[in-house]
């Protein structure tokens, strides 16, 4: 007989906090699974890996992974992550948050971090809704669906996140769904090797609020919906990948380009302007004077 196997994901979880709070059929746990496998496959140094999340159902990811993790304020995971990264560039900083957190209250920070090409990896779980607070409309919610703040149906246009972040300057933009577990894990592993602002959008079911209010079935029905309606179009122009209530879901790796990241540009600028006077040291390395 085989020896007793442990789930390869287990070391990545705070098992003392299991079971997690996510609903049956919610896809967030699936994304965390893929993330754990991406970490295993890419052999990322876990000591330097830091997770920063915002507020919301996806924001709870930080509390369940067995890594240095920060559950910050609503919409502000990205600037917190920016501070971490600039102060200690050796850190591998991942922002793991939801569509409302990242594109509504956090929208300004999203576009500026992309513009600056800060070397952080943003995993945006998009369930098209504000789930934690009871199912309010998000900037990503498509038209003509029922939410708690649009009880007669949404009517304002929704963001096309890949298009937004590409326009803002992201060097890596991909979208998958929780059905595309292998491709998702592969994308996640890929971004660890890519310096610069990387953005992975993951469509995920919210069976309790988004799907239920719109009679779209449960989590499994949504996964089947993703399977039926997704089309992999790598390098698709991002202006063509907008989402509607029941239409095609274009997935794939849309953008993978080269731009110097923020720290590289800062270094070059200071070196050119200051020459020998430039002290290229990180903030964390030289300020604190811990007596440890």
């Amino acid at each position, binding site marked *: 007989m085989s020896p007793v196997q442990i789930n390869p994901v287990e070391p990545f979880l*705070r098992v*003392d*906090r299991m079971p997690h709070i996510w609903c049956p059929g919610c896809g967030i746990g699936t994304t965390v699974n893929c993330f754990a496998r991406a970490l295993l496959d890419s052999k990322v140094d876990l*000591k*330097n890996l*830091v997770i*920063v999340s915002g507020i919301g159902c996806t924001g709870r990811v*930080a*509390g369940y992974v*067995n*890594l*240095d*993790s*920060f*559950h*910050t*304020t609503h*919409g*502000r995971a990205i*600037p*917190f*992550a*920016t*501070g*971490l*990264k*600039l*102060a*200690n560039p*050796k*850190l591998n900083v991942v922002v793991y948050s939801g569509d409302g957190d990242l594109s509504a209250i956090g929208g*300004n*920070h999203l576009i*500026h971090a992309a513009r600056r090409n800060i070397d952080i990896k943003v995993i945006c779980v998009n369930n098209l809704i504000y789930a934690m607070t009871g199912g309010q409309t998000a900037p990503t919610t498509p038209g003509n669906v029922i939410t708690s703040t649009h009880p007669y149906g949404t009517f304002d246009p929704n963001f096309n996140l890949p298009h937004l972040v590409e326009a803002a300057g992201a060097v890596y933009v991909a979208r998958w769904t929780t059905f595309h577990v292998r491709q998702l894990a592969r994308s996640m592993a890929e971004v660890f090797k890519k310096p610069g602002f990387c953005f992975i959008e993951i469509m995920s079911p919210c069976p309790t609020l988004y799907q239920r209010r719109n009679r779209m079935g449960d989590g499994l029905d949504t996964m089947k919906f993703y399977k039926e309606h997704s089309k992999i179009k790598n390098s698709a122009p991002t202006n063509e990948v907008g989402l509607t209530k029941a239409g095609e879901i274009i997935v794939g790796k849309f953008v993978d380009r080269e731009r110097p990241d923020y720290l590289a540009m*800062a270094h070059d600028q*200071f070196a050119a302007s*200051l020459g020998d*006077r*430039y*002290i*290229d*040291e*990180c*903030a*964390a*390395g*030289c*300020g*604190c*004077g*811990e*007596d*440890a």
Partner: protein
Amino acid sequence: MQADPRGVLTGTHFIDGDHACCEGCLAAGARFAAGYPITPSTEVVERFAMRIPTVGGSFIQMEDELAASIAIQGAVWAGAKAFTVTSGPGFSLMMEHIGYAAMTETPCVFVNVQRGGPSTGLPTLPGQADMMQARWGSHGDYGIIAVCPNSPQECFDLTIKAFNLSEQYRVPVMVMMDECVGHMTEKVVIPAADKIQVTPRRHTKAAPGAYLPYQCNGDGSLVPDMAHAGEGYRFHITGLTHDERGYPNMTVKVQDSLIRRLRAKIDSGKNLVEYDGNGLDDAEVVVVSYGITSRVAQRAIEMARAQGLKVGKLRLIVAWPFPEAVIAKLAERVKAFVVPELNLGQMVGEVQRAAGKAVKTIHVPHAGGGVHTPQQILQAIVEASQ
């Protein structure tokens, strides 16, 4: 421990309060700042932007104060000392993150070069109307520390003190300057690095696996030890009510013990009362003031003493926590307190509360945009002496 000489601009300088504050940050060991332009504070970070590439560290101008006030906390958890700088409208925007720093016990410094308010108010003119906001501005129960420089020299010295207190108490510390002190140019002496004491980060001595982020180590300070990201501790930090493990634990019991400790660690702080007192022993009237107003008050006190009045000076250096016990003790024997402020009544309420009903507290408000005249304060002193 001694300051890192790379950040210490030893020498005698003729600079304004904003610039002196920046030098204080550098001398204290700050190597990260994030900011957003706002008059009359911007010079602090402009100078930092110029200085830091030759010292070692980073400055980033963020897209708004919301971003700046939390970027600094990311830098702190990465291992740096960090600060941000703002004025009234930006201070309001930063309130949520001041609360986050208080809740997560993140040592950092917020400099507010106060201007006339409310709202856009008087961007280039002084005010002192954010004093209560410094104490109570974020939602929920928590404690903070605030210092009030009244000269460019103090902008240097008290900024170092602010960093030291923030590390000691693991709390955000406010440096409550005002536009006058910030834009006033005076002599500032910066000593040699080995004459400047800086408080190091309270880093845990426990090994990974044996470390709980919010467990006090039993030294009586009520302040837990810290770890940094990237050291292998694999800790979790959240703004949710949390237990010693750092995990969310949203129960009445945990809320009670956590929040009481956040208050108690400041309220019981041993080195937190600091004021500049003069002539208090035989005073009949005590003038309580801070910041630029204390400079005008000084003149008024001298004029009053020249008239034979027994007037004491109590200039707040640490404004929060408020020195209640000192005021209460004085209230046992003085006739009155006079409290001039560049606002319509903020710290005066604290004086009244501590002094009690038996003693008069005479308020000398000024809505801001300028400073009192010595005569205005003198008049109140004379009235108080009767």
